[in-house]
């Protein structure tokens, strides 16, 4: 794990992209890693064609969860909500590019899981409209 903390990871940790809040999000989700208590929130704005037009995350967490979320969200812009829902673990693991120990896997996947919850909320909302 000590080789996990390379420069670009620390940069995403210390300068997370898309961090903060949207004025009028179309879909929001938040979750908590029950084992450590870290919280994360994802807000999505959707354009007319159902693609992500803007996105933010917020919360406190370790370098693994924050950097993983920051990198993942960079790729979410412009994607359809269905596309986000179909994302698997690999999408996170390819970004970090290094094996993550099983004890920290939940940290790495927190962003993915909240992102997918937000996408699901967005789809449900679209359907009910």
């Amino acid at each position, binding site marked *: 794990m000590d080789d996990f903390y390379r420069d670009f990871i620390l940069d995403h940790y210390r300068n997370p992209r898309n961090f903060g809040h949207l004025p009028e999000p179309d879909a929001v989700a938040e979750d908590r890693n029950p*084992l450590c*208590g870290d919280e994360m929130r994802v807000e999505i704005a959707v354009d007319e064609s159902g693609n992500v037009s803007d996105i933010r995350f917020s919360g406190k967490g370790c370098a693994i969860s924050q950097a993983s979320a920051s990198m993942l969200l960079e790729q979410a812009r412009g994607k359809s909500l269905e596309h986000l829902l179909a994302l698997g673990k690999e999408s996170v693991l390819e970004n970090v590019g290094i094996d993550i120990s*099983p004890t920290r896997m939940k940290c790495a996947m927190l962003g993915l899981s909240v992102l997918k919850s937000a996408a699901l909320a967005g789809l449900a909302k679209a359907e009910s409209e």
Partner: protein
Amino acid sequence: MSRTASALVAGERDVRADFPILGERTSRGKRLVYLDSAATSQKPTVVIDAIERYYREYNANIHRGVYEIAARATDAFEEARAKVARFLNAAESAEIIWTRNATEAINLVAWSWGGANLHEGDVILVSELEHHSNLVPWQLLAERSGSRLRFIPVNDRGELQLDTLDALLEGCKLVAIAHVSNTLGTILPIAEVVARAHAAGAIVLVDGAQAAPHMPVDVRALDADFYVLSAHKMLGPTGIGVLYGKRALLDAMPPFLSGGDMIRSVSYERSTFNELPWKFEAGTSNIADAIAFGSAIDYLEGYGMENIRAHERALLAYAFEGLGALEERGLAIYGPHDPERSSGVISMNFADIHAHDLASILDTEGICIRAGHHCTMPLMGRLDLAATARASFYLYNDRSDVDALITGLEKAAAIFRLS
């Protein structure tokens, strides 16, 4: 495991070698003839070693530890849960809740499910042969909730009488019933009781403390709503037991014991709770013994539950035959007296020798049996017995143990000057 399987083929001596205590001698130099497995079973070396290995190599608290041994302990602990799920054919590991023993598992259901679902006038149905652990919690729940107990009768042989079941099920929310009687060995027709209970809108808790050790159990085939067991009766350590419950029921139940580990988030004023199975596991679990119970299950599966059942059935037939010769001297055997319908338990009295005296005399020969009411006082009353002497078998017993028992009974007859 391959060794165990071959031991069965090669004759029973090798199985005994897996259980270090069976090589011990009593203070009088007798070999141990252990015929009290219905109270608690002996443990094979693999189970004892699993405990030792945990404490010597990777003892750590689980679930929240980042470091290596904590991860190893967490994996082993959850792997043991998965083994139990597979052993009982549960739909998923999350339906397996660790408790201290079968008794605590029953109490968990009585307090949590019972507290939320039982009200004034509701009926709880149990059988007349229940162990106190599957009776007293329901008495107390009835008192708390204003509900009433009814009893499925048994006949003089301890066999369940189902002709009035539908009437008994009227107004019934919960049936709590043993899978196998610890006092008589009777195997109960659980699948039928469950089907009829479900048809009447009641759910069923099955007390599997005496069944899970001795025969294949498939909770989904039985369609049991809850199923409980104790590890210590099935080669596992003391201090660990299991509540199986269907997810829909467990999900809807309020928490019972609360504290660390079972929460999702806590503020000063209120808390939200973790998902299954941890929602019901408060505080530090019995980590070492859960892991060791996983080893016990491996051992049992290596032997094969069908093979255990077959072995005990054969031993029971052999014992009934041998004991038959003592019947004219006053030996009385209770229960179905039929290896097809009993698990490996023989409950008896010998002429006017009190069960306690019988047990003391057998003890001098190294023979361990149980004497008393076997935590089924009401059943003893129903059968008009004060106490019985109970011999119970497991996979490590063989014909030589039965022979020793018979010799011991003959010695008791001599001491008590029976003609």
